[in-house]
């Protein structure tokens, strides 16, 4: 039963592995950007699985729920920031990918390397 409590962290580790593998093994630029965004959203899972308290609810203190146990608000604030950082990096990377497609005509990194070497 104890290991079940750690299941979130194992999934976090597996998602990191998949994200990193996608980054290293695939040379297509768009596929690497998807891998990068998966790599980042794995970290969100690590932070949010820290904030859960048994029997707790979301930390919104309304009239009906004053004395309930509340989840920890701090990791949620950090992850709100990290999600927007993730989407900003993805948007910028996609813009660069579009410009690369126009400049090189392809989005496969190995073909681009050959073009650069010839130049």
């Amino acid at each position, binding site marked *: 039963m104890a290991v079940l409590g750690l299941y979130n962290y194992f999934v976090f580790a597996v998602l990191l592995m998949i994200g990193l593998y996608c980054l290293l093994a695939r*040379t297509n630029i768009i596929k690497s950007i998807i891998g990068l965004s998966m790599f980042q959203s794995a970290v969100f899972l690590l932070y949010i699985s820290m904030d859960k308290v048994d029997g707790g609810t979301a930390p919104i203190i309304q009239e009906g729920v004053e004395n309930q146990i509340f989840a920890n608000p701090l990791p949620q604030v950090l992850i709100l920031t990290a999600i927007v950082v993730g989407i900003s990096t993805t948007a910028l990377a996609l813009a660069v990918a579009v410009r690369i497609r126009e400049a090189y005509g392809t989005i496969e990194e190995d073909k681009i390397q050959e073009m650069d070497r010839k130049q």
Partner: protein
Amino acid sequence: MMTIVFSLFLLTMLVIVAVAILRTENLFTAVMLSGIFSLIMAANFFVLDAADVALTEAVIGAGISTVLFLGALALTAEYDRSPPVGTWVPLLTSSALGGVIIFATFQAPRLGDPSAIVHQHVAPWYLEKTPELIDVPNVVTAVLASFRGYDTLGEVFVVFTACIGVMALLGRVRPRRDSIKEGEFKKATDNLRHHLIPRVVGKMLVPFIVLFGLYVQFHGDFGPGGGFQAGALVAAGVILYSLVEGGVRGRELVPEWFSSVLVALGAFTYTSVGVASMLMGGRFLDYSVLAHDPVHGQHLGILVIEAGVGMTVAGVMITIFHAFSRRGIR
């Protein structure tokens, strides 16, 4: 017990979808599956009592990023023709990374264990002091806007930089393309005008989506919501209109200069609130000096900066979408 059952279900699905994203050849399928990935992640956050984060992950992860990826795919290629690179090195490094983490997390506190240190030190102070100092029901918004307001200021400028970057990269297109003539408009195919039913339903729903976005913006203190989610929702409404009516009409609805002004104005508002609190004798971003009574000052401060964040995020998402959709295939 109940959360463990649900999160078990959802997390296994998450891993399966992640492996599927890795293996598919067709980029379009990968984008679709990453949409599912974000939805499962958001559902998981909801099960783990993080309502605000679930809303943000859904709106930004499943909504905006899928639209951006599709916009980029339309401009680049659709198949991942990467030759099979030697899989030993990446496999080794990633499994080493995974092994290190699994090795470390055996000593991590169990899921939901109330005696974990994380719930002992800083969190109880926030939960206790928010009703007293800031008197806002949603503690997450209070911490995001006031206790750690400097983080969110940095956050707004990260989004601002992304907008600047996309404008610098995909900036001005030759004006000839924009002044589209009626004949060419018929042929322009970046809209769904000839689909009658989607067009009517889509245009009918746009005002409700924008209204819902504003509701989330001003409801941010009382329920899950806030500047980021509201900005993304409003942008989603405008994007829906541009999808249905086509890029040209979309840019008439929200012209390009207007969304840039929105972006700059939002970031400027946030910083000027900080400078105003400095001028009024408090520290940078200290809202309690803004009004006669500290709690009112906090309410005023949080309201204004959430509006600033909402404006910036909405302006950024609209500008980025227009930058992608206006970029014809060269």
